[in-house]
């Protein structure tokens, strides 16, 4: 039997459990990262191979895509993600995601990872404290507004999904011109349905860049990949696995060479 410690952060010994595809997806760990194990599990359950990457290293180890998981990078006592943006690994990711020739690396930032992506200007806008000033953890319904990114290709347009939301600094802000451009260009990828949980402008939960390879979102798809441990849904308690589609999407996109 496996002797893997079942938890957070330390997935150095994680086995690559019979991946269905050759897709290698890097999961970056900063010292204060919390959801890296969950992200690695989501990659495995989606059929790929999770490759642990360390913030201080400079090699992307030939991964095909990157997940920046949630947490508190370096403590985030300053602005969330503001220091992480300068990590050696982030420089490599920025380079690979914005390459002027060849395939641009697909990058997904979740929660703190989304904050890192806005801090490093791979995505527009910024996150501030929730308007109610509290940490909020709840099951959240989102509408998928853009299915043309490698991370959302297997959703149906306008699909409603439920995944956990949990953050303190989740209020998405951007200037009016940026918001207008995002809407006009269809770059809002996920939108909150129902009560706005944090005051985000235009109820934006996730956005993509101009080339659609970089996606950031505040809620946590990696916590909705396994029945029994996700959000509640119609089939039963904690049965929601809507988040898994994000990971199967990118793996299918990589396999199909779609970009």
């Amino acid at each position, binding site marked *: 039997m496996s002797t893997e410690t*079942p938890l957070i952060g330390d997935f150095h010994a994680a086995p690559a459990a019979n991946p269905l595809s050759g897709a290698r997806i890097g999961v970056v760990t900063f010292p204060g990262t919390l959801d890296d194990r969950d992200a690695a599990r989501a990659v495995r359950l989606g059929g790929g191979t999770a490759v642990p990457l360390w913030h201080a290293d400079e090699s992307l180890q030939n991964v095909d895509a990157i997940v920046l998981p949630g947490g508190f990078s370096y403590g*985030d006592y300053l602005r969330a993600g503001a220091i992480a943006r300068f990590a050696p690994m982030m420089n490599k990711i920025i380079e690979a995601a914005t390459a002027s020739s060849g395939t641009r690396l697909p990058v997904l930032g979740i929660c703190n990872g989304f904050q890192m992506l806005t801090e490093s200007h791979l995505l527009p806008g910024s996150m501030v404290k929730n308007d109610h000033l509290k*940490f909020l*953890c709840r099951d959240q319904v989102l509408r998928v507004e853009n299915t043309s990114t490698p991370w959302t290709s297997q959703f149906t347009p306008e699909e409603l999904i439920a995944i956990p939301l*949990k953050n303190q600094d989740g209020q998405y802000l951007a200037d009016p011109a940026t918001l207008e451009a995002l809407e006009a260009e269809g770059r809002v990828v996920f939108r909150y349905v129902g009560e706005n949980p944090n005051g985000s402008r235009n109820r934006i939960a996730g956005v993509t860049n101009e080339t659609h390879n970089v996606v950031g979102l505040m809620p946590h798809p990696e916590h909705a990949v396994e029945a029994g*441990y996700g959000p509640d849904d119609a089939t039963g308690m904690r049965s929601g696995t809507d988040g898994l589609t994000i990971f199967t999407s990118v793996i299918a996109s990589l396999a199909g060479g779609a970009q």
Partner: protein
Amino acid sequence: MSEPTVTDKEFNIDTVEHASTTPDTDLPWAELGLKSDEYDRIVSILGRRPTAAELAMYSVMWSEHCSYKSSKVHLRQFGEKVTEEMKKDLMVGIGENAGVTDLGDGWAVTFKIESHNHPSFVEPYQGAATGVGGIVRDIISMGARPVAVMDPLRFGDIDHPDTLRVLPGVVSGIGGYGNSLGLPNIGGEVVFDSVYQDNPLVNALAVGVMRHEDLRLANASGVGNKVVLFGARTGGDGIGGASVLASESFDDSKPSKRPAVQVGDPFAEKVLIECCLELFHAELVEGIQDLGAAGISCATSELASNGEGGMHVELTDVLLRDPSLTPGEILMSESQERMMAVVTPANAAEFERVMAKWEVEYSWLGEVTDTGRLIIEWDGETIVDVDPRTVAHDGPVYERPYHRPDWQDALQADTFRSSAAGENLPQTAQELGGAVVDLMTSPNMADVSWITDQYDRFVGGNTALSQPDDSGVIRVDEETGLGVALSTDANARYTYLDPYTGAQLALAESYRNVATTGAIPMAVSDCLNFGSPEDPEVMWQFAEAVRGLADGCQELGVPVTGGNVSLYNQTAGRAIHPTPVVGVLGKFDDVSRRTPSGFERWADGQAIYLLGTTHDELDGSEFARGRDHLGGLPPKVDLGAEKMLGEILINASRDGMIDAAHDLSEGGLAAGLAEMGLRFGVGARVAVDGICERDGVDPFTALFSESQARALVALPRSEELRFTDMTTARGFAALRIGVVDASSGDLEVAGPYAGDSFTLGLDELREAWSAVIPSRFATLGEATEAVRQEK
């Protein structure tokens, strides 16, 4: 007490040699909280007067908090009443940082509850935050990876202005620290009662898991092994908290008042967790101890006295945040996020590599010796030379006088039924329906999700159940589904009426909660919150509660593996109600078998059974609280029945017979039904006449009595026969009282009363039930509502 006759400078570098030649020097032992006979004992142990640093160490290690001097004689029962059978899964018992229980498959689990009551009253955010930090470090010290936390909380009256200060700070402190560690918060309690005014109880539980081979103990063995302090730097925080250093020892160039409450840095703790686990995994430490109360004093004396030899430490090598700290202050500092470890010289370089990877600061302080002495030097001069056992283990032990309060008889005679509160009870369908709504919208029965939604319950991806289900459930092994369930409970009103029974009722409820989710109860950790041990009446409550808990654990066959005693919870001479918080840990072979606490939408038409017997037991109940009455005797305890009920619920879960289960406790059947419906917004149609007939009680009693050893279950009709065969074979009362009605969204309760039945719309009830807490504490939300509308 007179001024010390030594100058400040001499006091600060008061060496052993100096102490030997100045036997008549006055020391501020009284200001440090020592009694004169305790001071005399230190002098007799050492054969001379202690140095200032030694005095500081003894004073804090012999304090109530560290030495358990008032409680020790009673706590012994937890060890004495453990049978061989109860020990079979116990890998480490009471006395270490936390007890360790074998889970099977090579896994072990460790858990513990501690209090951080006083700091949380003074500074709610940091007090609660560092409470989480401290208990998590206890778990790491055992070699385990922390996997979840829980927080039993008790506040003053919900409408008291100070509760508005304390509660939001405590909740955001727990969230702010715990959420940053990546530990799901899987449950706890929230209780409001004016007895906790000026004395909130902020208890914190942490649970961790490890492979058997990763178990670590706090001892320093192997002569020549090196002692290292790592993590955060040592600062001046936490020194004033226990009033252990007299003001005379500070000179004017430094701040005269140190912060009484430690300040937490959750990022440092998160890094410390990962860094320690890497050390364990690479087998780089021989012994490890977290730094909590009494800081380096505690860590050095505990490590040294639990090993075979002695220890030699150079205190000037401690990395400081504040270079002006004196040796005594360094020894006493309770700065957070620090650990002390013993490392072989061969592993030192590898240890340093791990520190560098995680960018954790460390300093080598000394080594393990064979002298049997703990020797601490300051710049090469000896300032401490003691037998570490005399500091850590041979503290004073008191047989505090205790006696049953004179008022106890009158209190117990003042039953609910005989009081004015017991008159004009609801009788008609309409009155009973209204009473259920009143109950569910009372502060102690209301929805606590405004609080628990500020905690991360998902991180780790192994949370199978959390608030509001009966216990929190965490998967340990992803391949097999092996996991644990945890619940904490206390009913201080019951314990006030009868401390012996009350403590057993807390145990019974926690045990029942764990079994209700389908887990097999295995171990107990307790946090005993009481008033002053110097009050013989409080001491009687304590003695009775401990005796009750120890007897109860023996009867249920679950050992106490650790815990904490918090005394002096009283302000202006008024003690809190005795509050023994009992945590029970249970085991699942496969957590996917866990039973949820509510009716699910797909379960339409399932049968609802009430297990157990209802008696007229309203004394101390939530209904009585609603009428401001507290008197009489708490519900009867029948641990044999609890055990049998547990077996039924565990078997039913394992064999897949039931789809929902919820224990009956505060608020009785009325609360149980309402909570099962509110869980997923699925209604039910039930009738209470069967209960009234069989148990000889009226409908009001059937709904609101808090008789023990009862639970509600929902099961498919196809399982009814198998299920009732099981209860009949055990002779355990089981009565079909209704069906799940997924189509209606209403809870309909029929009975032998005027009006025939009452119907509660669950949506409507939810609105009122979930508004109780936010309406008091979400005032910031109102301020931002206008902004929200604009967006």
